[in-house]
């Protein structure tokens, strides 16, 4: 399924195991609220996207209303915010469990890897248990030998954001 690599690049090919290690590490950092460490998995020019549930698959946040469309600056500020007690929606903090499955490498041109996965994230707070279910699409880039996340696009399978009232955790 991997895209054919350019001549001489085969040695640099990214394996599914390496992608899985990255995504599983990400899940654990989120579940333990180590958000600065989580942010360090991202590139300096990253984007983090959660389209509204009625949008087509290829929706563009510059033209359509999303739930979340963060560039690197805002994603960093999101972490700054979430680490404060004055982020009232997450203080006391939710308990969360991020489960990532069906990981596949969809394309690898030697510079960037596109990976897909399915996810279920559970959020427990104030007596409610909410589930976010959907698919993930990552653009990954190798920087100083390490895979980093350049884009994470979270497409919810939910028909709408209900019964949840918010996406106040990082998915």
């Amino acid at each position, binding site marked *: 399924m991997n895209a054919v690599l350019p001549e001489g690049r085969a040695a640099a090919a990214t394996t599914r195991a390496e992608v899985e290690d990255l995504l599983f590490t990400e899940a654990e950092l989120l579940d333990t609220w180590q958000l600065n460490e989580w942010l360090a998995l991202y590139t300096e020019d990253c984007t983090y996207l959660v389209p509204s549930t009625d949008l087509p698959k290829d929706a563009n*946040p510059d033209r*359509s209303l999303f739930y979340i469309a963060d560039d690197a600056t805002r994603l960093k500020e999101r972490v*700054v915010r979430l680490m*404060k007690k004055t982020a009232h929606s997450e203080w006391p903090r939710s308990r969360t469990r991020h489960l990532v499955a069906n990981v596949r490498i969809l394309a690898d041109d030697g510079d960037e890897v596109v990976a897909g996965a399915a996810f279920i994230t559970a959020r427990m707070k104030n007596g409610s248990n909410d589930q976010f279910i959907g698919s993930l699409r990552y653009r990954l880039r190798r920087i100083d030998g390490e895979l980093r996340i350049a884009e994470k696009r979270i497409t919810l399978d939910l028909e709408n*954001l*209900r*019964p*949840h009232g918010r*996406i106040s955790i990082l998915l």
Partner: protein
Amino acid sequence: MSDKLDIKLIDRGDEHFRVSREAFVREDVMDAEYARIFDKCWLYVGHESEFKKPGDFVARTVARRNLLVTKNNEGEIGAFFNTCPHRGATVCREPRGNAKNFQCFYHGWVFGCDGKLKSQPGKESYCEDFNAEGRGNLMPVPRFAIYAGFCFVSYDADIVPLEDYLAGAREYLDLVSKYSEAGMGVNEGMQEYAIRANWKLLVENSIDGYHAVSTHATYLDYLKNTNGSLSSTKLEGISRDLGNGHAVLEYAAPWGRPIASWVPLFGEDGKGEIEAIHARLVELHGQEMADRMAFKNRNILIFPNLVINDIMAITVRTFYPQSPDYMLINGWSLAPNEESEWARKYRLSNFLEFLGPGGFATPDDVEALESCQNGFKNHRQVPWSDISKGMSKDVPSYDDELQMRAFWSRWNQHINGLLPEPATRGADAAPATDRVVA
């Protein structure tokens, strides 16, 4: 249900205004709200811009009814109950799209975009003039009207015309519809979320200037971090009762407005464009109105449940209770129809910075409302909420509670059958003053 509920829901003196917390928790109060408010008012159903071509449609739930809103071949928008007159199935099962016809999949009846019955399989089994009186057509809603692009329905055939109903709110709907010569439209992408709290808490919250500094401290921190410092503009302004339960707060604020108020986060590139938009607004509307449009924020409530917040972007939202402690919310972004790519990008970015379920502020509002609802579990021992801030002032400030009292007074009139005759005052009537006893 008797004409009056068996408890006093509003307690009002010269210096205090209190709302019974039973209003937020009782099932019979919610039933009364459906019967005496949602069935008796004009309700927002959608925006004209959602219907560009004949055949464009949306299916939407409005106060527990399934509605189908379509544009017909003559270019008229109409709203119908989304149920086959034959045996009941919904004739439209997609949330939006474009269609020539709507076919009920159960027995195959076909309806045009004007709601008229076009064909029935086995027509020969029916009498010849079966549909002579339209009993085979989709049932239109009793009333449908559009003001400044905002489409409303009413389930009360005898309601006053929409323009009269809107009273002093008309001026504000006019204002937000005039930002662009190309008109205003809702952007693709609908935010559909929920709050585990009573719907009236969101009415209060949507027009509450008092909570900004405490609830949204992290948003103000964000503005400081990303723009170098908080702009010198202070949060200050006024609130107004617009009559018929409608209200507004209008104020200056320290955040950017993509329409014509620049902040460093927008980048130097956008500065010229923002200045050009402002200059054009001055040409079209004069300096005073242009400055008001550009630099003032408006949180607008159209009674009972349409909120248009013209703040760091323009949000349109409407919401209904599913139960006394759970509401469903639909939200949209309203924008000039012909905006440059740059302006649209920053408008949407600005929207998401604060607004909506993934923003830096709305989740904290959701938490606050759910926290209130949780607190209402103590309603037998702590029976009243206090809504008296600014009551003794001649000109209440944007962070006083006049606007909530306007809502609650009207709500009380509906619930307790105290509406004056005729049911609504005309637009020219002076807005109710703060001291009218509910």
